Each structure stands twice: as structure tokens, then as C-alpha cells.
């Protein structure tokens, strides 16, 4: 299941939904707005249409590489205050290795393959977040 939305989501409800698929193992990642350097909020911009396609490609690749019974990808867009949830990745499989590895794959590759851009809001300025080489390296190890 893939969702790109303004609204918040409930990680507990998402985990329960994955558990109800009857898998033996569920893994998840939740990303939150960090209050680094006085950041009070982020605005998430994206490329409607391409975003959904990119996430669908990632989901298909994960399904092809690991025996997953279900996966959930949720990414929020718009203005998000410090501490707010940004992204949720959840995977369900028979055993832990597939669930954990697929979850790490999905968040690592989402960071380099999906067209989202973060703008940071600070008390005195706004600025675009710069892409990090460490994200490229994390995504590269799955190729």
C-alpha cells in the first residue's frame, strides 16, 4: 500500500494492519522532523504523479527481492512541524531477515529515488535542505 498525503498517519494502526496479513514478522521505520539547528518546521515539496510512480517501482523491487506478504509506504507532503511524522515504511514477511532488510532497502532507496524536496524553516530564514552523499552511499549498497 502506497500513500502520499498531507494528513498525519497512525504507525500503530499501520503495524496492526501489517500484522493482520498473517506474516510471522513485521518491521517498520518512522521518520520524524528533527529540531536540528533551531529548525521549527519543514515543508515537503514533491512531483505529483512521478512520486507515486517512483514509490511503486521501489515497492515492486522490494517484492521481487524479498518474500514479502505486504508492505506499506506512506510519505507526507506540505508543512510539518518539528517532531511530526514524515515517512513510514512497514514490511511483513514470514521471517525477520526479509522484513528488516526490505524495510532498510525501502527507506534507503526512497531517499535517492523519490522526488521529494525538504525546505527547512528556522526562526530567521527558510532554506532548502542539501542532498547528502551519505544517502547516495546508503542507496548504492542495495544496487
Amino acid at each position, binding site marked *: 500500500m502506497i500513500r502520499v498525503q498531507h494528513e498525519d498517519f497512525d504507525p500503530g494502526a499501520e503495524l496492526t494492519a501489517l500484522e493482520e496479513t498473517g506474516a510471522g514478522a513485521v518491521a517498520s521505520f518512522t521518520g520524524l522532523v528533527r529540531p536540528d539547528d533551531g529548525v521549527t518546521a519543514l515543508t515537503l*515539496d514533491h*512531483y505529483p504523479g512521478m512520486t507515486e510512480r517512483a514509490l511503486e517501482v521501489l515497492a515492486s523491487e522490494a517484492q521481487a527481492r524479498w518474500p514479502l506478504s505486504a508492505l506499506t509506504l506512506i*510519505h507526507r507532503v506540505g508543512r510539518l512541524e518539528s517532531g511530526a511524522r514524515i515517512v513510514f515504511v512497514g514490511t511483513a514477511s514470514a521471517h525477520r531477515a526479509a522484513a528488516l532488510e526490505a524495510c532498510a532497502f525501502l527507506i534507503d532507496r526512497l531517499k535517492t*529515488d523519490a*522526488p521529494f524536496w525538504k525546505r527547512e524553516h528556522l526562526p530567521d530564514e527558510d532554506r*532548502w535542505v542539501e542532498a547528502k552523499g551519505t*544517502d547516495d552511499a546508503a542507496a548504492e549498497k542495495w544496487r
Partner: protein
Amino acid sequence: MALLTILYFARVAETMGRSSETLDRPHGVMTLGALADWIEENGGNLGYRAKLRGAIDQQMAGMDTPLGDAREVAFFPPVTGG
């Protein structure tokens, strides 16, 4: 010539001063990078080329990718989601 929609996102939308435009595909422009050159020769500012990324018909594409029968092209900075 076929109409081509060009989208700009994030910092690139700011330097371009617009988020989209539709135009007749320029003559002799065969690749994404050549289109970027053409935009800048015609008064556009796409920012630092080393930080310019693009997509053709909603798929990530390098600057040397042929435009082919593209209907929608996008220029943007490296992505920072997640």
C-alpha cells in the same frame, strides 16, 4: 513540432521564476542536457549544473538521455525526501 511540458521543482523553480511551461519542442534539441542548455540560452537560470537533476516522462534521467518522444520533462535539485 510536438508540445513539450517542462516542470521545475524546489530551488530550480525559484531560480527559473516559474514552476512549469509548455512549448514547441526546440529544433535540434536531442537530449535532456541539450534542453537545459537551450533553456539557459533563452534566459532561464537552472542553477549550478552539478546540482541539476532531471526526469523524462516521470522517470529519473541523466542529462545525456535522449528526449525521444517525451511529452513531459522536469528539472530539479537532488532529492531530499524520507
